[in-house]
């Protein structure tokens, strides 16, 4: 039965499987309707659509922040409709997540924000001292490890968030509007970093409104409208809904 797949039954190198997924908030119209989506390991996928199309709900389902109303969802072998609450932290440790509003711990400096992700997976202090500077170097913030978030520009804050998401070497990186608060220059820099991360083998899923970036990068594009996938193209572009 396809609906009751376990870790070993995910076909091929498929890393995300959504089959007939519906999500409805209480007493409202469904936000996602019969969504079928298959993402393979190492893919770079844009999820696009207008406000209210269900993009953020999809990301929240992949993060297991929300549960599906019906259907089947499997991420990295975890059946997210059945996963136990105590197993969720372990599942999330294989995911990196970046938000539009960065969500950094404001009272901690750059180093502490990134090291925090390593603390959570119980890395030793020695390993943290080795891993954090090297990931900060990757995102170009090695010289600003002592700075607090408020001392950084939006682009720099997003890089810190990216470093935090990457330091635990996630299998999948979820980015929810990562360039939403950034100017074009910083937006492109973040996208280049995401592309570089993807080239190193991490599956990257980016939810965005940024037409220019989507059209220029020529990656797989999944377009949502009112909770339904209206197109799914390899090397696609931004879909005009009008």
């Amino acid at each position: 039965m396809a609906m009751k797949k376990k870790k070993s039954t995910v076909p091929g190198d498929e890393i995300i499987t959504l089959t007939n997924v519906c999500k409805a908030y209480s007493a409202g119209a469904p936000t996602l309707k019969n969504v079928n989506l298959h993402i393979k390991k190492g893919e770079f996928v844009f999820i696009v659509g207008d406000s209210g199309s269900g993009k953020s709900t999809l990301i929240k389902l992949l993060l297991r922040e929300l549960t599906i109303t019906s259907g089947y969802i499997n991420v990295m072998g975890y059946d997210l409709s059945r996963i136990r609450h105590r197993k969720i932290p372990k599942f999330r440790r294989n995911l990196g997540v970046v938000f539009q509003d960065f969500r950094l711990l404001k009272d901690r400096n750059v180093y502490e924000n990134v090291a925090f992700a390593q603390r959570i997976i119980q890395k030793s202090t020695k390993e943290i001292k080795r891993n954090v500077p090297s990931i900060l170097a990757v995102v170009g913030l090695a010289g600003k490890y002592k700075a607090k978030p408020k001392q950084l520009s939006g682009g720099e804050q997003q890089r810190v968030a990216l470093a935090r998401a990457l330091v635990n070497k996630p299998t999948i990186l979820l980015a929810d509007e990562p360039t939403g608060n950034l100017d074009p220059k910083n937006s492109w820099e973040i996208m280049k970093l995401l592309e570089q991360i993807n080239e190193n083998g991490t599956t990257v899923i980016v939810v965005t409104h940024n037409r220019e970036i989507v059209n220029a990068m020529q990656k797989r594009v999944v377009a949502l409208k009112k909770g339904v996938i209206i197109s799914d193209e390899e090397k696609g572009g931004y879909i005009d809904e009008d």
Partner: protein
Amino acid sequence: MRISSFFYTVRQGIRNLFRNKWFTLASIATISACLFLFGLFYAVVANFQHIVRTAEQGISVSVFFDEGLDDSRIQEIGELIRRRPEVSNAEFVSADQVWEEFRTEYFGDYEDGFPENPLANSAHYDIYLNDVSMQSALVTYLESLSGVRMVNRSELVATTLTGANALIAYVSMGIIAILFAVSVFLISNTVMIGISVRKEEINIMKYIGATDFFVRSPFVIEGMLIGLIGAAIPLGIIYGVYNAVLAYISERFPMLVSLLSFLDIRDVFNVLTPVSLGIGIGIGFLGSVVTVRKHLRV
């Protein structure tokens, strides 16, 4: 949990105290105020109870014997009395001792002129009780013993002291319950406000993959430290105030000190210290656990 993670958690708990200075101060002030009132009230009640208990210990019941009752029966009655659980002590007072006491008190150095002991039938037992409320039961028992002529007791004093004791117990239980409820309400509100502010921080931790235990631990340590400090401050203040009040009373009202016996500060703090610290740490622990739990379902 790794040792380094354990120390990290403790360090974060301590750092949280300084990161959220206003929340920390507000929580400590709330706990301190509640426990100060509690401690002050306990010190007053404990002293009242001590004074009443001391007064109770001075109350005795006297048992007089039938005329000519032989010594062996008197001793037997003494044994029966001492076996009673409500009796703390029973002292035999011979007729000669009674007369000697009377004579010394009323005649002093003058010759009394009596050839024989005029109080020959006044040998008796003075009985002291553990619990003055049991006096009537004891008197009924004593009056039923053969060889007992008369039982003297002070019913009014016993009833008054028993009533005072019960009143103190009920009032103190009521006030402590109210203080406790108010403390829990104030403290949980303070903790809730503090943690609501940090809801985002908890969410971030959960998104990164922190376990509930990892998220909760620094908050719990912070809560317990706030409780500990919040309890230690009023204990210090009460210690100083108690000593000062006792010194003031003994200096200004020496008559009062000779009439009433106040508890030594060590007796008060032997109970107050563990109870206050327990309440403070307990409230800090429970407050943080309950409030963080609301935000863990992310």
